[in-house]
């Protein structure tokens, strides 16, 4: 289904994900070369979203592994189910007595039990965690390793086996190979530089803040009820804000939230008051708000001056439709 780069962009667009050719090319290559993709970039530019829409576009089942400090293989790969093993031992006590019946020495009895221990270390007693699930999935799956930079450096080590060979080694069972190779997306906010070994195995995608043109397209797709004027104002404002030296630079997700908030307030275009009221949607620090306010008045004055030159056409735009439910979060 991903025949060409254009097709990829198209089918992502069908899932309401607007992207440039850079992203489409990488997704296409990941699909063709069966290589994992390491997606980096600032928070909120749609890294996780990309994995989700690719899963939707390819009809794959998405398996997500959220990384955090202290994540270990028991939570990421597999775990033996101790309690179940214990329970089975209790139930099978009699059988064990039969096995051991007639043993002349303790050593012999132990040896006989030892022969049976593969029963307890079999598929029955293993709890597959996301990495193993992705490998063993009958249908090709999509594995999302989210915020891999939050994990510990050691965690990367066993990611490597999964990423390069699509296999998992369980000492008791041997090596389990993938039935079908999953598409793998790793996202990172660059809290920590990933090791070269990991990077080498991945295709690399850096998603930056979108260009004005792209952001406009994204807005009009995601918030179709917003008017052209509003969208243009928002996009311009966001790009101005990103140039400031802010502690938390607002990204695409903030743009969308803002657009929806403004829409809920029935705004057709930006004005000072409206922006003041809704600043909290895009700026998350007090200091940032203060910095931005100065810039804001400049932008709005310029805009007012331009509007004064152009004849004031007082055509009231139709009231925007209600915001989609659940769109605000």
């Amino acid at each position, binding site marked *: 289904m991903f025949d*060409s*780069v254009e097709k990829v962009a198209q089918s992502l667009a069908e899932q309401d994900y607007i992207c440039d*050719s*850079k992203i489409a*090319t*990488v997704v*296409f*290559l990941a699909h*063709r*070369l069966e*290589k994992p*993709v*390491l997606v*980096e*970039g600032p928070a909120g530019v749609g890294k996780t979203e990309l994995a989700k829409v690719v899963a939707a576009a390819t009809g794959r089942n998405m398996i997500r592994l959220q990384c955090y400090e202290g994540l270990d293989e028991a939570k990421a790969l597999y775990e033996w189910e*101790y*309690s179940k093993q*214990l329970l089975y031992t209790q139930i099978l006590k009699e059988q064990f007595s039969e096995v051991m019946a007639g043993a002349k020495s303790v050593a012999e009895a132990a040896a006989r039990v030892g022969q049976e221990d593969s029963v307890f270390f079999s598929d029955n007693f293993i709890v597959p965690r996301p990495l193993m699930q992705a490998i063993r999935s009958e249908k090709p799956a999509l594995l999302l390793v989210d915020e891999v930079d939050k994990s*510990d*450096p*050691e965690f990367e080590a066993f990611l490597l086996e999964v990423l390069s060979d699509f296999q998992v080694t369980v000492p008791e069972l041997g090596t389990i190979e993938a039935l079908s190779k999953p598409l793998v997306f790793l996202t990172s906010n*660059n809290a*920590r*530089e990933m090791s*070269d070994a990991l*990077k*080498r195995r*991945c*295709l*690399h*995608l*850096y998603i930056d803040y979108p260009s004005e043109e792209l952001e406009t397209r994204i807005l009009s797709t995601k918030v179709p009820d917003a008017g052209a004027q509003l969208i243009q104002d928002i996009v311009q404002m966001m790009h101005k804000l990103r140039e400031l030296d802010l*502690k938390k630079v607002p990204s695409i997700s903030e743009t969308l939230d803002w657009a929806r908030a403004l829409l809920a307030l029935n705004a057709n275009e930006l004005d000072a008051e409206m922006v003041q009221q809704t600043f909290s949607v895009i700026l998350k620090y007090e*200091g940032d708000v203060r910095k931005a306010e100065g810039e804001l008045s400049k932008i709005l004055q310029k805009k007012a001056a331009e509007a004064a030159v152009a004849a004031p056409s007082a055509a009231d735009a139709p009231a925007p439709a209600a915001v989609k439910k659940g769109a605000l979060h």
Partner: protein
Amino acid sequence: MQKKILEFTNILRKSGIRVSTAEAIDAFEALDELSVDQREIFRDALRTTMVKRGEEVPTFDQLFDLFWSGFHDSLREAFGEAAAGLETFGMDLEELLRRIAEALQNLQGDLSELGDLAQALLSADLNMLEKLIREAAEGAGTDRIENFLQVGFFSRRTLDQMNSEGAGAELRELASQLEAAGLSPEDLAALRSLIEGLMEAARKSVRAFTERELQQQNHDYMEKFRRETLLEKSFYHLTEDEIRRMREVVERLAQKIKNILSIRRRRLNKGKLDLHQTLRRNMSHGGIPFELIFKQRKKDRPKLVILCDVSSSVANVSRFMLQFVYSLQEAFTKIRAFVFVAEIGEVTPLFQEADINEAIEKALDGGDVINVYTRSNFGYAFHHFWQNYLSAIDNKTTVLILGDARNNYNDPRAWCIRDIHNKAKNVIWLNPESPSAWGFGDSVMDKYMPYTDLAEECRNLKQLSSVIDRLVL
């Protein structure tokens, strides 16, 4: 194509982008899957397979543009000019070539007797020309070019390598033969002018090629050089730009130490068996100890009190010291920061409100608590500290003092440091001057030295990071 990509890979490597062989192979595989006629996609494919760091992307983009485009265009431009010169004679290149071919037939010869270069020049075969120039440049070793002064030298060598003089002579010879064969004088004049134009175009193109090569080879060379030396560069001589870049280096170093810390701390977790916890945890397994819990060995994280001299002579050291320490905040239980020139004042609150860099800039300005426009007086500052903040120090506190101990012949009041030393776990003094200067002139370092556990020279990042490393581990 393959060769060109490998060449490009080499140039990337020279610019500090680490491209492994496996990655180069990936790039080839990726290109197999794509139609490479679309420049954008071609670039994206190379980028995604070869460049794995966000900050390397701009370098890649610039190099890509330099490498994969332009030369053909500049060739076309140069030879377009030469051909345009014919207009003054009222004819175009094709027309002239046709007439030459006619005249040649009378001579019973054809153009293929000419050398490759002469042929390519005359027929304006740009692809062939590009190939010839590239080969010649390779022969001339242009990829070893290092600075602008060598452009002329390598251009000349490249021209010699492709025997441009010989080609010129051949062409001129051809013109005289054609004259003998009865080419009209007007055509002949046009041809002669064309030949000179072509030779000039060839020279220009080779020079342009050499300059591009220089740009490619040299791209980031200085950058890399600077970054490497930045670690060892003395804090005294930093430009604005270097301070900005230094900040990034400090950040990276701090990150590195953090990574190491996380590993070391995990090793510490393996203490003795915790019987209590083990029994509790394994109750669900019928009391059979499947999972063992170990006691955690506690490692005291140090408390830190930093006294920073922020007089202009050592401001930079203080800047990076503060940045370093605050980037590693979680390695310490508590940090209190003081700045002084003559008065001393606490700037800890600054770091709780603003982000690190902002707070540092404020602190270096005295943080609204002290006057920075006076002459250093260490004795006064320490006495003041002794009077007001001595309670900040307990037996778990490491005191880090940063200053050149140039006291302007004031009373050093070393007994303050002695008292601090008696109360604190450690007193570490970092001095940006080299030890040979300590105690000379107005330096009172020798008076303070007896009361410090460690006095170190700290004039560059390398030394700073080694001190911090010892501090947190």
